[in-house]
């Protein structure tokens, strides 16, 4: 548990930058603390000291963490840490992160230089998608009519129908995802694909060079235009490259 966090030495970590790229962060840190830079040999960890009392996550802290990252990212290349990264002391942080992982951090900073992250979600319109699937498959249409007629009595038919729909949706999702991710590959340097909901064709974070932002946006626009009204594209960013902090995650 967090018994040991109830000391004044605990340090909350937002990320790491090159020391000469960032002077200060004005945004308020988690738990309302001031954000500081802990320097070590040309690298600086963006941190804030946690209050002596026990630190409990509050919704507002999520926003604070993000704002600190965003402010630092506006000035510098940053290797972000996940929300909730707290170490026991400044000494630990300096040793375990800034000193021992110096090479890894420098490599990551180099890899992320001039890059931004965009989070893209392709979402199906439930009605449009289902209508299309049902119209393409006579068996689905047959079951649809049967279950509608049977009502509650058609429990097993409903499950069967749902099962077939689930399979059809998942197949459609696979085809769409690989096709669309392929269309975005040219304008991106890296991608991390995540599981989305039932009606999410794909959900991915892309690492994009600032120079290619326009090209990327154009590609999204083309996709959105071609896939509507069955699909809608949502893009968030540029955000700090949280999904690409480690090469393992970025591939």
């Amino acid at each position, binding site marked *: 548990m967090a018994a040991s966090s109830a000391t004044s030495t605990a340090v909350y970590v937002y990320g790491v930058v090159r020391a000469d790229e960032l002077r200060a962060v004005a945004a308020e840190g988690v738990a309302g603390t001031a954000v500081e830079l802990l320097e070590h040999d040309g690298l600086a960890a963006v941190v804030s000291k946690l209050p002596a009392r026990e630190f409990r996550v509050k919704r507002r802290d999520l926003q604070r963490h993000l704002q600190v990252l965003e402010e630092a990212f506006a000035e510098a290349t940053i290797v972000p840490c996940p929300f909730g990264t707290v170490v026991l002391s400044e000494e630990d942080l300096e040793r375990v992160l800034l000193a021992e992982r110096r090479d890894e*951090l420098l490599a990551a900073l180099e890899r992320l230089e001039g890059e931004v992250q965009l989070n893209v979600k392709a979402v199906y319109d*439930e009605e449009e998608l289902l209508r299309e699937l049902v119209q393409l498959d006579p068996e689905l249409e047959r079951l649809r009519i049967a279950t509608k007629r049977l009502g509650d009595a058609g429990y097993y038919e409903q499950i069967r129908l749902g099962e077939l729909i689930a399979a059809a949706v998942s197949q459609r999702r696979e085809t769409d995802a690989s096709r669309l991710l392929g269309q975005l590959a040219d304008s991106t340097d890296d991608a991390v694909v995540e599981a989305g909901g039932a009606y999410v064709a794909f959900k991915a974070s892309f690492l994009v060079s600032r120079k290619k932002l326009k090209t990327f946006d154009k590609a999204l626009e083309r996709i959105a235009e071609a896939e509507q009204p069955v699909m809608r594209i949502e893009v968030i960013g540029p955000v700090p490259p949280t999904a690409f902090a480690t090469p393992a995650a970025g591939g």
Partner: protein
Amino acid sequence: MAIATRGTASNYLQRAPSPSGLADVLDVILDKGLVIDAYVRVSVIGIEVLTIDARIVVASVDTYLRFAEAVNRLDLAQTETAGIEELREGGSAAKRKTEGAVEGAKEKIPGLKSDKEHSR
């Protein structure tokens, strides 16, 4: 309830410069980034619950029944013609709905609920 967000010239591509809803913020900062070795880390109360909450994916009878219901709701004979204004609002309304659901779930977490100043 039923929000039909049809792709139209106005909303087929939604751009947001920064994540605003809770789900989108979690998407960016939770479990993503450089992980510091566990032996100097301190666990933070509430994170584990957040993590579990953020991953909601299932394949079950319930899912099947929901799919079946959704298909049964389709009115295949009719092509709806919604007004442009309604369509424009569709996107953000759907988003609000999602956020509401996620935030609703979060209310059950004691550690998060105490943040009175920020809860709506």
